[in-house]
């Protein structure tokens, strides 16, 4: 009996997470010392040495630890069962990038006059040119629009007497529009490819036939607006 008792007393206190051949998985958060709170291994051996050398008592001590560990295992099992743990697998497709381009029109005479005629007399003409450049990322369709005419005096109006001719002189001169200045509304220009440059000539003429005394010292201001739409 004493021999058996000593053998049992010499059994190592269970300190690892191994129980019944199964290791407790660390991901469940179980520590590696079991059972906790029963003292160190040395203290346990000392306790056993001073305890009565009976198999029943020694086995009772081990049984307590077994019960404690089983309790922990049951708690772990319960936690696992209620944690909703599942298999999960994910894949990703990163860096889906989208970038907007830019349509940019460069007007060589932006915010200033294309032509200005001072003391224009009947039968005279005045010309001015401007260059449009599509500096955007796309082809663009550009339009010249009459953004407003201001006549002084309002009547008779000089804009109703002057004629306007718009030409594309990038290559061979091509007349795009001609008529009385006051009737100009808008003109669709040729489609620009990205980076393309085109030059336009504007000619204003004071026809002899339109000259009336009331237009002496008359003035007319016309604002042209260039609008581009990406194509």
């Amino acid at each position, binding site marked *: 009996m004493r021999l058996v008792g000593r053998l049992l007393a010499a059994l190592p206190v269970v300190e690892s997470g191994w129980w019944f051949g199964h290791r407790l998985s660390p991901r469940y958060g179980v520590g590696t010392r079991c059972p906790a709170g029963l003292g160190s291994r040395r203290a346990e051996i000392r306790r056993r040495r001073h305890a009565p050398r009976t198999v029943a008592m020694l086995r009772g001590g081990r049984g307590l630890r077994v019960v404690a560990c089983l309790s922990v295992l049951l708690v772990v099992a319960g936690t696992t069962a209620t944690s909703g743990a*599942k*298999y*999960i*697998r*994910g*894949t*990703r*497709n*990163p*860096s*889906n*990038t*989208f*970038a*907007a*381009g*830019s*349509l940019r029109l460069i007007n060589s005479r932006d915010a200033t006059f294309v032509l200005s005629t001072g003391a224009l007399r009947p039968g005279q003409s005045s010309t001015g040119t401007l260059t449009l450049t599509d500096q955007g*990322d*796309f082809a663009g369709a550009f339009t010249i629009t009459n953004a407003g005419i201001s006549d002084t005096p309002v009547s008779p109006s000089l804009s109703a007497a002057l004629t306007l001719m718009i030409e594309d002189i990038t290559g061979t001169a091509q007349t795009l529009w001609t008529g009385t200045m006051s009737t100009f509304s808008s003109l669709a220009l040729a489609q620009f490819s990205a980076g393309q440059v085109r030059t336009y000539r504007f000619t204003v003429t004071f026809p002899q036939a339109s000259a009336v005394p009331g237009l002496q010292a008359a003035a007319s201001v016309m604002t042209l607006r260039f609008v581009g739409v*990406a194509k």
Partner: protein
Amino acid sequence: MYKRLAVMKGKQRASLLLAALVLIAAAAVGSSGAVFTAHSANPANVFTAGNLSHVNSKANAAILTASKMKPLDTATGSVTITNDGDIPGTFSLSTSNLTNTPGGNGGLLSAVLLVKVVDGTTTVYDGPINAVGTVPLGTFAPAAVHTYAFTVTFPDGGTPGSDTTGDNAYKSSSMAIEFDWTEVQ
């Protein structure tokens, strides 16, 4: 009787004790009621954990990209998701890592782009690219293959009111987004 036992010598007493033990053992066997027995076994009960897995045909790569977009432009791309596991999986699509780089007019491109995701003939999402959330895709059986077609559209907001408002607000802006596929058993 007791006197007789007492006068027996040690060897005789031991023989008598042995004989008594044999008799007791024989009696125990005789009263055990042993009859015919039979047994059977079911060996090799094997348990194997299932494997939850899927293949993304463009894993860790973009499904679609687009540059120099303008209103009414679209970009398309597709990705194939295959359940190569041996158990069914419940799939979902979500987005993450959304970033914006505004252009000179300050508009955030993700605020205007739309994305449509179609599985065969079924549209699983159609809406703003910045509001995908988590889209349930259903449960795929092992070996099931689903190809998702993505279309990103820059909608036409009409003629801008000025050079910096309307669609012009998004000129030269860019964005990036990640599409995430999650399979759960």
